[in-house]
């Protein structure tokens, strides 16, 4: 074995979790190799579309061309997809997977992964979330509680920099936040009316968002472009590329290898440890083995789980660490089918300047104080408002000078809101590997099968009804509730296929994200999740990653792994 292939630690994946693993490991002095299956994207330098005007982009930045839809039939359906962002999403034809039922898998195979294009909402989970499975007899219990993760939330928040408003509600714990972005006139109006009507139980706040409203460690603040998914030349939102990977590189301990697809983990039967990772070069398809004392899997939920399933040995014939048989099972995503639209005829003398890259938020209020009869768990709402733009002129029969004069003026205020609901853990929702079909790199294709259940459907109905009720209370007009079908995967919070737990018979990872039976392998992306609380999950992945690194390095120093 070549000495250059030996490291202290290997991290598979360079996105949200992988960037954090790299930063924490290198800062603790470990020579760390980060394997990224996609191409390199250098911070700022490679954000090729970041400052382009609409007319500089193909077809004035229309969402997709015929060629785009052919090459990226799934990716091109995403709200974020346009001519300025499409290069941050995979070619679906080159990266195929099998869907037992429709499952939209939105992927960014590049350095930084989806941390380049994420929606940036960062909320903590609370004990309402960590205790729910045990109290209600759903799935298995989380092996941790809020007190275990609270210092790591703080650790992460201090470094990433986030802005927003603390709700003062126990179900959404207080965070370290910069001042929020300002509400517009309609949002202020709604906030006041909701406070009067719901007495603090339901409230409108500015989302906690990993977007800087103030300078932080030489980054930002946000310049109001709201073009985050192109990459930010001002480093104003958190991404691996802009924040954690540079910190890791600054230690001198980081080796970053793009275009390096992890094929399988190398298991030593005698030592009962993983000794390294088999890697296929994306371009040449040659295989190289890299070795380390500890391995962190941060390749995103389905890919980290696939890597474990593809790591078979006589000890682990069904995939590394899969003594429980749960590996690949319990796949979750959020659901966001229930919501409402509305308009507001007043406040026509108020406007805004700049493009705010966050939303307003209504924290969860169902199943908090009292138990609902129709469903378990709850949902929070993202709320978006603006004044009408020229696009309101598209879908009508009008034309001419008066028409042009009218639609070039700010139009009526309008609002869009959708709930983000918890999805219960269900053994039947799962992914597995094809027994005979492989991708271009000789790695078995991933199959996915996921359906929302009765609890999610009952919840979605209430999500719509509550949205309508709140907008009525706020005095909005033309309120239209909706409860639409959601394709699993489309919220892009896939999680749960290598869950944590106390019992190795029912879980894959322990309370420190450590594979029960292989103590030098840690899995800290969304696959570790035991339940899928209503809040956006990335902050929790980052906090669990930092916590797991701290634990792993302690064990390494004591010679325990």
């Amino acid at each position: 074995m070549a000495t250059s292939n030996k490291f202290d630690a290997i991290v598979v994946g360079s996105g949200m979790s992988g960037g954090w693993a790299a930063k924490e490991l290198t800062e603790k002095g470990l020579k760390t190799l980060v394997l990224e299956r996609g191409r390199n994207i250098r911070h700022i330098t490679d954000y090729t579309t970041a400052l382009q005007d609409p007319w500089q982009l193909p077809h004035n930045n229309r969402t997709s061309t015929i060629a785009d839809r052919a090459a990226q039939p799934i990716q091109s359906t995403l709200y974020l997809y346009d001519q300025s962002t499409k290069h941050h999403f995979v070619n679906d034809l080159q990266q195929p997977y099998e869907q037992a039922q429709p499952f939209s898998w939105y992927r960014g195979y590049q350095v930084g992964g989806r941390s380049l294009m994420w929606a940036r909402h960062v909320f903590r989970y609370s004990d309402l979330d960590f205790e729910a499975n045990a109290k209600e007899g759903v799935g298995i219990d989380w092996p941790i509680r809020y007190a275990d993760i609270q210092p790591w939330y703080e650790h992460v928040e201090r470094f990433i920099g986030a802005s927003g408003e603390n709700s003062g509600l126990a179900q959404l714990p207080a965070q370290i936040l910069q001042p929020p972005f300002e509400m517009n006139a309609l949002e202020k109006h709604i906030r006041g009316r909701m406070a009067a009507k719901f007495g603090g139980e339901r409230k409108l706040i500015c989302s906690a968002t990993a977007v800087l409203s103030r300078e932080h460690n030489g980054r930002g603040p946000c310049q109001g472009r709201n073009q985050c998914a192109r990459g930010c030349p001002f480093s104003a939102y958190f991404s691996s590329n802009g924040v954690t990977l540079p910190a890791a590189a600054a230690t001198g301990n980081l080796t970053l290898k793009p275009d390096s697809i992890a094929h399988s983990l190398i298991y030593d039967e005698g030592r009962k440890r993983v000794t390294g990772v088999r890697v296929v070069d994306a371009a040449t398809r040659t295989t190289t083995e890299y070795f380390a004392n500890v391995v962190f899997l941060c390749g995103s939920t389905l890919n980290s789980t696939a890597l474990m399933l593809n790591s078979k040995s006589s000890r682990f014939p069904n995939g590394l660490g899969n003594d429980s048989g749960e590996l690949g099972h319990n796949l979750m995503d959020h659901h966001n089918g229930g919501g409402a639209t509305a308009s507001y005829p007043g406040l026509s003398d108020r406007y805004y300047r700049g493009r705010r890259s966050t939303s307003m938020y209504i924290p969860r209020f169902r199943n908090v104080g009292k138990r609902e009869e129709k469903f378990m768990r709850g949902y929070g709402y993202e709320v978006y408002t603006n004044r009408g733009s020229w696009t309101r002129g598209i879908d009508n029969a009008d034309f001419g000078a008066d028409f042009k004069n009218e639609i070039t003026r700010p139009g009526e205020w309008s609002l869009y809101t959708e709930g983000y609901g918890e999805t219960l853990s269900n053994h039947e929702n799962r992914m597995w590997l094809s027994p005979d079909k492989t991708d271009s790199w000789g790695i078995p294709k991933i199959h996915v099968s996921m359906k929302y259940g009765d609890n999610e459907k009952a919840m979605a109905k209430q999500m719509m009804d509550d949205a309508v009720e709140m907008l009525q209370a706020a005095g909005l007009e033309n309120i239209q509730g909706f409860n639409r079908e959601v394709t699993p995967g489309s919220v892009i919070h896939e999680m749960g296929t290598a869950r944590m737990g106390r019992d190795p018979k029912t879980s894959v990872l322990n309370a420190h994200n450590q594979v029960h039976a292989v103590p030098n392998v840690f899995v800290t992306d969304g696959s570790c999740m035991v339940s899928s609380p209503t809040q956006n999950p990335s902050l929790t992945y980052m906090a669990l990653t930092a916590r797991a690194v701290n634990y792993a390095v302690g064990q390494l120093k004591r010679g325990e792994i």
Partner: protein
Amino acid sequence: MLMGHAAFGQVMTAFAAAPRKATWFTDPEMATLKALVDLILPATDSPAASAADTHYFIDLAIPACASADAQKTFRSGLAAMMRFAGLDPAEQVVQLKARAAADMPLAYDQSFFKILKDYTLCGYFLSEIGATRALAYERVPGGFQGDLPLAANQKAWAI
């Protein structure tokens, strides 16, 4: 180096002076299209759609972006209006109003008028002329101010 700059300038002048050629539509179709986009978005206190080359935008964007059905609808719709550019302006308005009324109940891919409106507005308002002169546009706003009084002459933001 100076020579290089001078030569480059001459090339650019020559390029700008050359008449622009459509790629997908015929010259008569382009004449109709030019009349249509200017009827939808005429010169007001900002230039007309054709001054921003909106008809050339449509010539590139429809074959690249529109579905096969929408392309077919648009092409045949345009073919049915071959003498449109030669009509007097009042008659053009009457004909386009009739077309709009007939097309509004149709699905997008079957509606010439809906496709025309979509691409005309996108082509004009996201062009440099449309975004910066008919509307207000800031590439880098420099931050966010959430609640400001609306100035009397304030145009809507382009994006």
